[in-house]
């Protein structure tokens, strides 16, 4: 089912890299007349170039009601969902304000906008929670077995709850919920990528989580398609395949530092309080339980296959090569050196044996 693309698209959260890139990508599409970025914060200078074609409105979600009607918005792309507290923007308090209250207000505004034809909401695979009784692979209709511990995961559950309410009240507006796996790629900057960029990666002792990533460019492609085409429903967006955490650390040439779960939580909480690092219970849950989703529905409905997890991760490694110590090249060199050493030693020993044998033969 493909209808005409919306003429006016409102994108929230354009002061963050992903929101800005979505807005820029939609603005570059000639089928869309107007792209408006809605954000209470001024985009940082680094993103200004991306946003050259995008009209910016500095307002929070409360002002969205008026803005939607004034602009005649036909599609709303809700990207103002942050995955980790940002100390410069008010920490966890502000994160929850933006994620939960912001979504609530935005959806209330969207519900009141008469011309609205499409809603796209950024969600996360964190919506599946983390439990030891979970199936290994989540499909879109798997219900979380336990309320997750992480703040982001709890926010995601709230956000999806509001979207369900919106669907009930505006059944005429196709709502697309995209559950993204953690983003990766040469240009991705998330808590997880910063973790893998360090030379030492803390992991949980006795656990080797199964991880899945989605490349940022593929995420943008899926977001773009869900605005242009009609794909109502909830979709997992992830690269096929799995990397074990230990395997990912090894492929990145980093060194894993396994810590018991309790110690890790304490150390990270201390680090957060001091202001370094932003690894929370979300990441610890991910590192204990892992998270793998089925992307069959996305591939069928969108006709698009994101590059697989291993390939996406390779792209990230290539961009963050400094800081790796145990690279594949070095390991190969070490392997050759050890093998040559063994061969030489054995050759020397057998040479000596032969000499001894010949000497013994002479003597007798």
């Amino acid at each position, binding site marked *: 089912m493909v209808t005409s693309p919306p003429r006016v698209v409102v994108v929230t959260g354009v002061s963050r890299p992903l929101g800005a890139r979505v807005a820029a990508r939609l603005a570059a599409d000639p089928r869309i007349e107007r792209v408006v970025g809605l954000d209470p914060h001024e985009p940082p200078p680094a993103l200004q170039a991306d946003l050259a074609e995008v009209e910016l409105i500095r307002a929070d979600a409360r002002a969205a009601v008026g803005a939607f009607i004034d602009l005649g918005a036909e599609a709303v792309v809700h990207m103002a969902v942050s995955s980790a507290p940002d100390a410069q923007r008010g920490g966890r308090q502000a994160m929850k304000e933006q994620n939960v209250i912001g979504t609530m207000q935005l959806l209330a505004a969207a519900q009141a906008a008469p011309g609205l034809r499409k809603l796209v909401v950024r969600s996360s695979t964190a919506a599946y929670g983390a439990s*030891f*009784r979970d199936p*290994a692979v989540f499909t879109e209709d798997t219900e979380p077995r336990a309320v997750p511990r992480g703040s982001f995961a709890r926010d995601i559950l709230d956000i999806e709850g509001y979207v369900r309410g919106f669907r009930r009240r505006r059944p005429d507006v196709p709502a697309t919920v995209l559950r993204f796996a953690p983003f990766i790629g040469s240009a991705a900057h998330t808590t997880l990528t910063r973790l893998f960029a360090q030379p030492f990666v803390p992991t949980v002792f006795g656990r080797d989580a199964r991880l899945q990533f989605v490349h940022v460019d593929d995420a943008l492609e899926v977001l773009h398609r869900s605005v242009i085409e009609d794909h109502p429903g909830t979709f997992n967006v992830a690269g096929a*395949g799995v990397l074990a955490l230990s395997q*990912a650390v090894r492929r990145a040439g980093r060194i894993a530092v396994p810590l018991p*779960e309790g110690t890790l939580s304490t150390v990270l909480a201390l680090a957060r309080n001091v202001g370094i690092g932003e690894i929370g219970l979300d990441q610890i849950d991910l590192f204990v339980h892992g998270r793998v989703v089925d992307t069959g529905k996305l591939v069928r409905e969108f006709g698009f296959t994101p590059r697989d997890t291993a390939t996406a991760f390779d792209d990230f490694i290539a961009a963050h090569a400094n800081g790796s110590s145990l*690279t594949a090249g070095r390991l*190969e060199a070490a*392997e050759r050196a050890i093998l040559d050493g063994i061969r030489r030693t054995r050759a020397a020993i057998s040479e000596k044996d032969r000499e001894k044998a010949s000497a013994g033969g002479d003597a007798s």
Partner: protein
Amino acid sequence: MLPGHADFQLPKPAAPVKVNGRRPIPEVPQMSGHPEEPATATEPDQDVVEAKDPVDIWDQRVAGGLAFLRRRLAGAYEVDDFGFDPELTDAVFQPLLRLLYHDWFRTEVFGVEHLPADGGGLVVGNHSGTVALDALMLSVAIHDRTPGARHLRLLGADLVFRVPFLSELARKSGATVACNPDAERLMSDGQLVGVFPEGFKGIGKRFADRYKLQRFGRGGFVSAALRTGTPIVPVAIVGAEETYPLLADLKPLARLLGLPYFPITPTFPWLGPLGMVPLPSKWLIQFCPPIPTAHLTEHADDPMVVYNLADQVRETIQATLLELLEKRPDPFGI
């Protein structure tokens, strides 16, 4: 007649053949045991090479070992969606388990031809022996005796996946949590899935109750097989009961530790770590003819069909167990 009973027939008990015990052993055992066969098909070739040039083979082995280490350290291997690591399983886990399988338990396997050569299958077995060694030995038996060296994908209790280390060993060797979504996904991928419906009731039962099948739960394994149209292969395992004879179960201590039972065996906990060594019982594994389910796919939610089929599987395993026990009069014979 009920659908589950359509082609139900207890396997005809074969004439008992003594393979061990104090009685004279027949010159030619009439069973497809394989005590003298080499573990892998490649070994004879290697021996020939070794005889010709003993230096070369060692060089190859060292090079192979180093390449394996390098691949592991560089992360250059594949892991499937369930966390199964075939390379690690074949190179490390299986050879270690094979020592127990061959030399310690002297396992004999019958009826391997009943396992599907390719495509999905659900192997349902009896569970026993305090520690779930039977599941591991079953996976070695299937890996060694099937033409394609198939891997058995075990379904484990969630307790296994709660324990650090154990959970990762289980996942890397191909196991996953026993739940219908995972079982159905594996079976529709054409994997051989292994399940022990007795669960902790089976391995935690006392030695006095040995070889008495416990309740089979709700038959969730049957509905998973029906939904995917996968044949069910019942398997009877004799020998696991004697590895750790469970004399008593300290329930209060078990509750304190969050375990389903706390075993007292003749050696554990008296001998400390030495008590963890299994007794060297003689093992027999018999695969039974597969029960097709493809014609029952629409009955997956019919509790009557599911229950009857579960009962049929249970009866088959119990009958085969008794039959195997007659073949093995001495639990610790050769």
